């Protein structure tokens, strides 16, 4: 059964891969039950009913700081969801997240140029290597001076935290493209930029996307840190607020919701990589 060449059959493999989930859920339910028998008002490990109520509540009613009356007399289901706390927070965090992802692409281009053009490489590489080792969170006061504490600061925190990794990765990927191919490009009459953009970039592109994919967690980590430090909305803002009175009945749904969103983004990127680069099989 535990051989390297073992071939699990479909049903058993399915069972095997869900076992830990089942155990986790059972342990949770058991803990919740025990704690609620001991103390019916327990907040720390909410029951499934409390979790569902919490989720429905967050997805159908406006946030506490918003006006209850903004929805009008008889809002439709969609209006309710659109005006809800969960949607508001997801939209706020989502916006920051997407802007940050978009800002990773200039980082890729910088890495490409650094790898392809030695002078640009020499100019930037030491600095980027140095910056890569700076823990963005530890120099927060400087970031506050430079960027304030608004939206811009949160996005900059993510960019400073994650972009150096992406730049270095694209740089290394560019370096790893065989010189023969570059020379071949030139013999076929390509210019410098043409080699960079038409020979090197298409080859490293799926790997670069994959690198961004692997850094999604870093992006979200910095996003959450930023929102927990100072903000007026967002998924982490809500979690930080709820933590203050142990509102685990809302925190757990928020955490699962964030995990789901991250999973969907990850899957989407994976599908895009597969679809646009059918030759690439590393994902």
């Amino acid at each position, binding site marked *: 059964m535990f051989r390297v060449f073992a071939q699990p059959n479909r049903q058993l493999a399915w069972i095997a891969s869900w076992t830990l989930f089942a155990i986790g859920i059972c342990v949770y339910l058991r803990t919740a039950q025990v704690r609620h028998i001991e*103390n*019916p*008002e*327990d*907040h*720390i490990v909410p029951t499934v009913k*409390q979790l569902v*109520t*919490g989720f429905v*509540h967050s997805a159908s009613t406006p946030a*506490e*700081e918003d006006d209850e009356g903004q929805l009008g007399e008889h809002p439709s289901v969609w209006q309710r969801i659109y005006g809800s706390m969960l949607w508001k927070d997801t939209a706020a965090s989502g916006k920051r997240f997407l802007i940050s992802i978009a800002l990773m692409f200039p980082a890729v281009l910088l890495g490409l140029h650094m790898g392809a053009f030695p002078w640009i490489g020499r100019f930037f590489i030491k600095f980027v290597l140095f910056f890569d080792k700076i823990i963005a969170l530890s120099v*927060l*006061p400087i970031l*506050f*001076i430079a960027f*304030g*504490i*608004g939206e811009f600061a949160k996005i900059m925190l993510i960019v400073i935290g994650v972009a150096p990794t992406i730049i270095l990765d694209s740089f290394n990927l560019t370096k790893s493209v065989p010189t023969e191919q570059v020379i071949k490009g030139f013999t076929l009459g390509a210019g410098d930029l043409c080699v960079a953009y038409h020979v090197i970039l298409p080859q490293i592109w799926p790997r670069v996307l994959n690198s961004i994919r692997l850094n999604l967690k870093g992006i979200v980590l910095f996003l959450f840190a930023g929102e*927990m*430090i*100072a*903000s*007026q909305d967002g998924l982490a*803002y809500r979690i*930080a*607020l709820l*933590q*203050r*009175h*142990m*509102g685990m*009945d809302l925190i757990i749904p928020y955490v699962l919701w964030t995990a789901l969103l991250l999973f969907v983004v990850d899957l989407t990127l994976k599908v895009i990589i597969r679809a646009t680069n059918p030759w690439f099989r590393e994902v």
Partner: protein
Amino acid sequence: MLLLTKRFLAFFLISLALSAAASAQQPSFTVAWSIYVGWDPYQYMAKTGLLRKWGAKYGVTIKAQRFDYAPSIDAFTAKNVDACAMTNMEALDLPAASGVDTTAIIVGDYSNGNDALLVRDTNTLGSLASKKVLLVQKTVSEYLLERAYVLNHADDLLRKVKLVNTSDSSIVAAFLNDSSQAGVVTWKPLVSQIRQSKGVTTLFDSSKIPGEILDLLVVRTEVLNRPDGSGQKFAKAITGAWYEMMDEMSGADADKVLSGIAAVSEDTLPSYKEQLSTTKLFYKPSEAYAFTTAPAMKEKLGLVRQFCFSHGLLGANIRSADDLAILYPDGSVQGKGDRVRFRINASYMQLAAKGQL
């Protein structure tokens, strides 16, 4: 090798047996405290042997353990520590609201200017409308801000203020370095740091709401009511130790004691004294007892409870503020009689006042 293992095992078993024997003789209690002007004495009490002395008198072992503030309350609510220093607001919205019956045995002090609303480029509450105010939301900071507006009859303007939830670890830098932030609500020593900056004025502080933000020592009621009576012994011991500490802090050698306290919390004597100046510390148990049993106590705690309720801090299963009832020293209950979750017990302070500890 085998011999070593055997020896180790024997040693281990003996030490286990010894510690079991010790704990069988003397029940042990842990007090969680966090850095704050009114709680820093706990560490000093542990260091100078006051806790040991009073523990020995009542046959209990008392340990003081430092936490960060939020984790200290989490540990208390999770029943990992027996007693914890916290404010009245947190006592209501964390342990009590989570169904952990909680009793306050020492009312140590109240904030008399420790918490403040500081603003730049303005001097009226009205002009903060549609501007940003930094604060740690859902804490005494937000309570203070709300009280500032209510006391100035400007409740309707409060809704227009944009609150930015800002972590206390970065609130000073965030406010001072970003001049687009109109105001900040926080506590000392952060307040003192911000006040040093130019153009910042204090618009409101907790000296205008004396006795509403209380700093307490709370014990889990089940610990206090242990059938073997050890909980009550613990309460007597810690109260006795506390008021001996208070005597030392206000006595002839006060400066030496205060610098000792400041040192354990990594503060300086001038800074600690400055914080004490805006803290109404009850040095005499009789003062604390009189304050705790005064009728005004109910009114003030009622305001805090209402705040917690209207901000949803009491949790989803609390339908009205009365679902979280408070038992006062005179036996009266604020809220539903069958839902008492928070008790103010002045009897230990009374014993201390009478010198019967």
